[in-house]
């Protein structure tokens, strides 16, 4: 270790060392001369015998082992000077690299956060999600029912802790205005599962799961700041939730986020215990999702095995479980799983853009290399080895890349902010930042980029062709054909990559346009939606709930500008209310699959407001109330599925939802709507009148004659005029809802289009650069041609033709690559196949046209060459 220390000291005291050595040599010489007699002759003799002092000095210095550092410093200084002398080149190269590296860093940052980074809880790799799966279709998504969760919790042994959560909205009154809060309703052990401590107070106790002890609430940090002024004495205070008194028992810390994939658009304000409703069959309401922590040493597979066994036992005793399965999966993988394919595709695309950028910069370097070949030859003649030259040229590339990378980081930072603002709901997106992992990635990428685009020019630039290079007439260098081949290959490769990206982007664009054309089944224009959630304390019985909503609808329908208004307890593309139905004549026997359908409860004018088609029969009226004949309506999908060969009118169905299901008669059939999104097919729906099956929450559907957004305030006032404490939530236009449902698809298409345009622009610049260079090289030859009678147009065609040839080569290669790669897009496409010939033909044409334009300017210049000048040109 002392050795290292001494070496470092040498580094600092270098000049002192040189002086010392100088003195030592002097003294040595004097002593030697003195020994020889002290005469001038003796001195000269001594000097001669001493040998080469320069060499001695160098060797002495080299002993200390820092020679590599000195050469590196030398190279860097040299490179700096070279770059400063050609600012245009440097600017273009750095900009190109900044774009490529910056964009890659930004995309990687998102990928890292959403897909790679562990969840923000301790030991998060042992956290899993559990849910009930539908035996055939898995359409349930990730939910299960609370009573089933209780059984799971009771019977499972391989988990440390389990918790079930669902999302809800409550009304907080008091203060100057009521506020609707987004809350998480959770069983008592959630915070133990997550291993998170509260900032103030405590978390739930096990007994607070039960009615009678469950009026406690935990606040989020945001709510505590906003509504309670960060008051530390808030613990123990009573607050008014849905007209009932709840006690605040805790406040969560500021960084706490649950669930982790919640986007910034709305955040959780509080946590509440569940309030089981004994009147409903809650085992059918699959609206909870379960997170659990595995015991140490237990794998997901083992947990899955145990849950399968438990599920088997439960399914025998409960008919609701019969048709379901159970799945256990790692939570972190689950969170990003939906967006993973799209993100990986984006990452792949932007990597291709970076490759194109590298090719462009390599081309630039090659062009410069041709000019500097004489200098290189000179250095080789003076004794520099090829390795030394290559090292110097690579230093140049890496330095350029470093400038580009640094500028790129700034771009990435800004780009990320923009991305987060514009992006649709991507899980964990708001956690994204440029953190050390991303910086490391950026540094490695920068280094790699520098080496990638530098290796070919370095190889070319260090070729030992001394004789030719040093000759006076060395401008037409014999190495140039070699060099030209390399440059052409690079341009062809660029074109190919750009074409692949264009093909992908075009396919996505067509898919998106196809999706936008789909008819959702309702008229989204001039349609507003809003949610009203009644507090069960204020409106405890179904009659008061129904009466309230009737009054609300009547009042809203009378607002000027409103054509009609209706409501349902679910809204397409926003919420749903699915459950079991029974068909008369097809009752499910034990062991058979139960029939699932959407079962919205609607008001009479609902279909008119939504703009849905009535196919047969009639819609509900206010006369269909609790004392009249139980009726139902179905949609075409239900008619097709349940009575494929018969008339559904007059048939009877039963909605199995708890209290006292009755047989209802089908009195009308309406058209299908796409409940789950534009792409997914419509599912069967069985509608019941709100008066015959009241619920405490309603999604309003308001058809307007004027611009819908203008009536937002009027609607809110209409509701508050009836009950001043009743907030109205999420007022938005259905057009916005439909647009949001495809926001992810749109965003991805836009990004791919952006990347593809970037790629095409870079490739065009590459062709332009190569053609310009080629023209300048061939000036002499063109002059001869023109002198021999070639017309300007012929010269133009000559150059453009050369450019087109390169483009054609690139396009052919690109099509081949695209045919292979676009299959990765298949899952994202709609209505167009991955190898769609029309698309491929279109983008090929586009690419070739752009290449033609890129060649046009140099061609134009070539056509204007004055033969006399050209012939004199050397």
């Amino acid at each position, binding site marked *: 270790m002392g050795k290292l220390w001494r070496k470092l000291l040498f580094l600092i005291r270098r000049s002192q060392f040189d002086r010392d050595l100088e003195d*030592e040599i002097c003294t040595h010489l004097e002593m030697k001369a003195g020994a020889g007699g002290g005469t001038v002759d003796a001195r000269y003799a001594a000097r001669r015998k001493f040998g080469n002092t320069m060499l*001695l000095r160098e060797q002495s210095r080299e002993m200390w082992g820092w020679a590599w550092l000195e050469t590196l410093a030398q190279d860097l200084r040299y490179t700096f000077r070279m770059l400063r002398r050609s600012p245009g080149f440097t600017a273009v190269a750095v900009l190109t690299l900044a774009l490529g590296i910056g964009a890659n860093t930004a995309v990687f940052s998102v990928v890292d956060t959403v897909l790679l980074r562990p969840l923000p809880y301790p030991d998060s790799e042992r956290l899993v999600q559990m849910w009930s799966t539908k035996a055939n279709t898995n359409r349930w998504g990730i939910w299960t029912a609370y009573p089933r969760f209780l059984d799971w919790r009771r019977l499972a042994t391989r988990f440390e802790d389990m918790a079930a959560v669902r999302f809800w909205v409550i009304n907080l009154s008091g203060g100057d205005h009521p506020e609707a809060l987004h809350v998480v309703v959770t069983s008592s052990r959630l915070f133990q599962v997550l291993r998170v401590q509260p900032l103030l107070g405590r978390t739930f106790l096990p007994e607070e799961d039960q009615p009678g002890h469950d009026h406690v609430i935990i606040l989020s940090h945001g709510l505590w700041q906003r509504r309670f002024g960060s008051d530390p004495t808030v613990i123990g205070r009573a607050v008014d939730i849905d007209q009932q008194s709840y006690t605040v028992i805790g406040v969560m810390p500021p960084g706490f986020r649950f669930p982790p994939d919640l986007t910034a658009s709305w955040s959780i304000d509080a946590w509440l215990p569940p309030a089981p409703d004994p009147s409903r069959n809650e085992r059918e309401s699959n609206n909870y999702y379960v997170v659990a922590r595995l015991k140490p040493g237990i794998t997901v597979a083992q947990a899955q095995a145990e849950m399968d066994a438990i599920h088997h036992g439960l399914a025998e005793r409960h008919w609701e479980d019969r048709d379901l399965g159970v799945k256990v999966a790692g939570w972190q993988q689950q969170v990003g799983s939906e967006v993973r394919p799209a993100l990986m595709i984006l990452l792949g695309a932007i990597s291709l853009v970076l490759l194109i950028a590298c090719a462009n910069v390599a081309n630039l370097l090659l062009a410069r290399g041709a000019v500097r070949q004489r200098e290189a030859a000179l250095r080789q003649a003076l004794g520099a080895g090829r390795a030394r030259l290559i090292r110097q040229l690579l230093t140049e590339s890496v330095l350029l890349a470093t400038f580009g990378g640094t500028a790129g980081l700034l771009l990435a930072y800004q780009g990320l902010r923009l991305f987060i603002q514009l992006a649709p709901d991507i899980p964990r997106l708001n956690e994204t930042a440029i953190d050390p992992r991303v910086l490391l990635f950026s540094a490695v990428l920068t280094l790699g980029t520098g080496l990638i685009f530098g290796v070919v020019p370095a190889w070319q630039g260090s070729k030992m062709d001394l004789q030719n290079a040093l000759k006076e007439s060395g401008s037409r260098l014999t190495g140039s054909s070699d060099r030209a081949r390399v440059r052409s290959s690079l341009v062809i490769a660029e074109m190919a990559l750009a074409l692949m990206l264009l093909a992908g982007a075009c396919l996505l664009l067509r898919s998106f346009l196809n999706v936008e054309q789909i008819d959702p089944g309702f008229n989204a224009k001039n349609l507003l939606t809003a949610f009203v959630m009644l507090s069960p304390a204020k409106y405890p019985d179904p009659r008061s709930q129904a009466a309230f909503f009737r009054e609300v609808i009547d009042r809203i329908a009378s607002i000027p500008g409103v054509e009609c208004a209706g409501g349902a307890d679910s809204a397409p593309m926003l919420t749903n209310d699915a459950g079991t139905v029974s068909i008369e004549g097809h009752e499910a026997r034990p062991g058979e699959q139960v029939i699932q359908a959407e079962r919205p409860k609607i008001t009479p004018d609902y279909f008119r407001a939504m703009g849905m088609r009535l196919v047969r029969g009639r819609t509900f009226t206010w006369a269909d109330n609790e004392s009249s004949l139980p009726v139902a309506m179905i949609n075409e999908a239900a008619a097709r599925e349940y009575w494929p060969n018969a008339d559904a009118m007059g048939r009877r169905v039963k909605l199995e939802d708890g209290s006292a299901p009755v047989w209802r008669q089908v009195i009308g059939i309406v058209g299908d709507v796409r409940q789950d999104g534009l792409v997914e097919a419509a599912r069967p729906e069985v509608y019941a009148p709100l008066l015959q099956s009241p619920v405490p929450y309603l999604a309003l559907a308001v058809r307007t004659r004027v611009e819908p957004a203008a009536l937002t305030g009027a609607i809110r006032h209409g509701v508050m005029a009836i009950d001043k404490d009743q907030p109205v939530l999420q007022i938005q236009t259905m057009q916005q809802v439909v647009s949001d449902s495809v926001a992810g698809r749109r965003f991805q298409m836009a990004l791919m289009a952006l990347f593809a345009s970037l790629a095409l622009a870079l490739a065009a610049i590459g062709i332009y650069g190569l053609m310009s260079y080629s023209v300048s090289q061939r000036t002499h030859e063109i002059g001869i041609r023109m002198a021999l009678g070639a017309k300007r147009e012929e010269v133009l065609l000559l150059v453009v033709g050369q450019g087109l040839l390169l483009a054609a080569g690139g396009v052919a290669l690109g099509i081949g690559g695209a045919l292979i790669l676009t299959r990765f897009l298949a899952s994202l496409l709609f209505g167009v196949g991955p190898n769609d010939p029309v698309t491929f033909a279109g983008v090929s044409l586009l690419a070739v046209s752009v290449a033609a334009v890129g060649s046009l300017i140099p061609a134009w210049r070539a056509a204007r060459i004055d033969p006399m000048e050209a012939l004199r040109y050397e």
Partner: protein
Amino acid sequence: MGTRDVRRTEIPPGTLDMLILKTLSRGPMHGYGIAEHIHQMSEDVLEVEEGSLYPALQRLLIQGWVSAEWGQSANNRRARFYRLTKAGRKQLDHELSEFQRVIRAIGRVIQTA
């Protein structure tokens, strides 16, 4: 290039360090003195090239086997004196025993000729 001095013999590779260390074991000395000492003690057989002496001294400095400081020479000239360190002494012993082991082995091979 002129007549080569007949007495000039190359120092066997790897032994220069040992010779320098041995020289310094007799007391601190400057570069010229070390070269002269080796030349004289070997009865003019071994002549140390300055081109190898100084780099070797650097090597010894890096390893920490010698230390250097400026002082006054016999003729009142300012010269850099090298001195053997404790580690250097240990290294010298080690190299001496190694060298003698090799010499004995070579001797055995030659004797049976």
